[in-house]
């Protein structure tokens, strides 16, 4: 069924009896050409582009819980392409371009809102670094705009620009950045993939791989064995757990990242702002809640909930630039498990096991990557060659010294 304004009116007049489920719930077949493990944003996007762009068929997405229950439904919804390094920036800009056409492509309202993102600058050295980053963005076809304190004051009069320790000295804006309704991304891709014939199988956990003579022949699941020519792992925070079943150790640690939503407020914050001297970033949802977050908790965790020191740290960062936050009450908070890689950048690559592919290591920034991650992973699975924007996301970059370390932090995942 095609969604449209006309359809909404028609359904309103006929008692909303015509809306069917947005996707089927089939039983798994015994065999597929492609099995994608993980029904998060990336897995669903991969299945969709495999069918739509790469004209493949017999595709299944296996999800251990329900789709949208992982990080795709837990993140703070920010999209942007403000990276510095060559290995990353073309990929994220490709992703932002896909976001710009996504709702038409999927015939689904994902509430893509290019309200802009502003990274605040607090020192001269930081301005130099952000000018360099802005230039790298421009060279890669993205937009970047260096703002003065005066320009920032005009747009955000409530920011404390004169904080004694961290005065605001300007900012790097990407006006095409913004936010997207996260679960709608999962649902939109699921519906579009389903209509291309992809089987989305929920409550189906992969519990083992069948590997013979170095070739992956299929997966053991809680719904039985499923034979597959090509298997694509795509399970974000569970990456190490899953790949361990295939005998692999990954350059990844799982850490918990928390997010916070305040009570609903009147329209206040027009875009996304990030504090440059500590860890705090914030946007306002269409329902009025301030959506904010900061640093990961910093220790290995699979708990999907964090601890209080980070709550305090995030709120302190918020108060430093945004003093009026002090009167706002926190409504909800939660955590998600991040697949923190050793250099802070993702991996999209084949493995040493023939027919088994891997997509992961997204750290806290994989939501913005969803469309491009799906596209380039589908490219890799269908053509066996990496997409031109994803050539650097290889496993062997760690042994070859070709890390993509945006922050220059080294092999310390809790610092990326």
């Amino acid at each position: 069924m095609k969604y449209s304004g006309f359809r909404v009116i028609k359904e309103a007049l006929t008692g909303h009896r015509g809306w069917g489920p947005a996707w089927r719930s089939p039983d798994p077949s015994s065999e597929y050409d492609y099995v994608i493990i993980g029904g998060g944003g990336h897995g669903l996007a991969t299945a969709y582009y495999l069918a739509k762009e790469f004209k493949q068929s017999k595709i299944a997405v296996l999800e251990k819980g329900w789709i949208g229950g992982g990080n795709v439904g837990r993140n703070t919804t920010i999209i942007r392409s403000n990276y510095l390094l060559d290995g990353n920036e073309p990929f994220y800009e490709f992703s932002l371009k896909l976001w710009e056409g996504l709702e038409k492509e999927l015939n689904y309202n994902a509430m893509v809102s290019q309200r802009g993102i502003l990274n605040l600058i607090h020192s001269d050295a930081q301005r130099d670094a952000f000018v360099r980053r802005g230039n790298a963005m421009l060279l890669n076809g993205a937009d970047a705009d260096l703002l003065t304190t005066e320009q920032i004051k005009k747009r955000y009069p409530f920011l404390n620009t004169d904080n004694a320790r961290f005065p605001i000295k300007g900012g790097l804006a990407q006006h095409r950045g913004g936010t997207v309704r996260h679960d709608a991304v999962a649902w939109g891709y699921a519906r579009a993939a389903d209509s291309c014939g992809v089987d989305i199988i929920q409550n189906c956990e992969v519990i083992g791989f069948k590997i013979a003579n170095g070739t992956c022949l299929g997966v053991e699941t809680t719904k039985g064995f499923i034979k597959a020519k090509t298997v694509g792992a795509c399970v974000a925070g569970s990456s190490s757990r899953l790949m361990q079943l295939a005998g692999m150790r990954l350059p990844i640690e799982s850490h918990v990242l928390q997010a916070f939503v305040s009570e609903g407020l009147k329209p206040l914050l027009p875009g996304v702002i990030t504090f440059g001297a500590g860890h705090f970033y914030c946007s306002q949802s269409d329902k009025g809640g301030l959506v904010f977050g900061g640093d990961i908790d910093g220790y290995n965790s699979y708990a999907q909930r964090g601890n209080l020191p980070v709550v305090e740290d995030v709120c302190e960062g918020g108060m430093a630039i945004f003093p009026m936050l002090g009167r706002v009450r926190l409504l909800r908070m939660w955590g998600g498990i991040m697949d923190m890689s050793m250099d802070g950048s993702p991996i999209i690559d084949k493995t040493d096991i023939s027919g088994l592919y891997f997509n992961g290591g997204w750290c806290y920034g994989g939501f913005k990557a969803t469309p491009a991650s799906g596209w380039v992973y589908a490219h890799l699975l269908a053509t066996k060659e990496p997409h031109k924007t994803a050539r650097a996301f290889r496993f062997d970059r760690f042994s070859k010294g070709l890390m993509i370390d945006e922050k220059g932090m080294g092999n310390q995942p809790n610092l990326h």
Partner: protein
Amino acid sequence: MIINHPLLGPRDSSEFVYLGDANLINRPNWQEDSALEHFVDYGYLRDNIAGVHRELWFHEYGDRSWLVVTRDTVSHEITEVRLASDVAIKEGR
């Protein structure tokens, strides 16, 4: 989280800095022929266990000792805390 420091008693985890898997105590021998391969493993690959995990914490805002903390990464429950120096000696380092 409260870390029960073997010398100082219960301390808040925010006094500590986290390094990672306690296997980092077992630094490979740089003189071995296969040292390069071992260092790639040591530097970049992790078990990343969901469950009981031995890990290194540094008491930065305290006595600056390194601890080996045994903690469940699913429940965050801490079951054992030892001085890393004791662990290293016991493991023949």
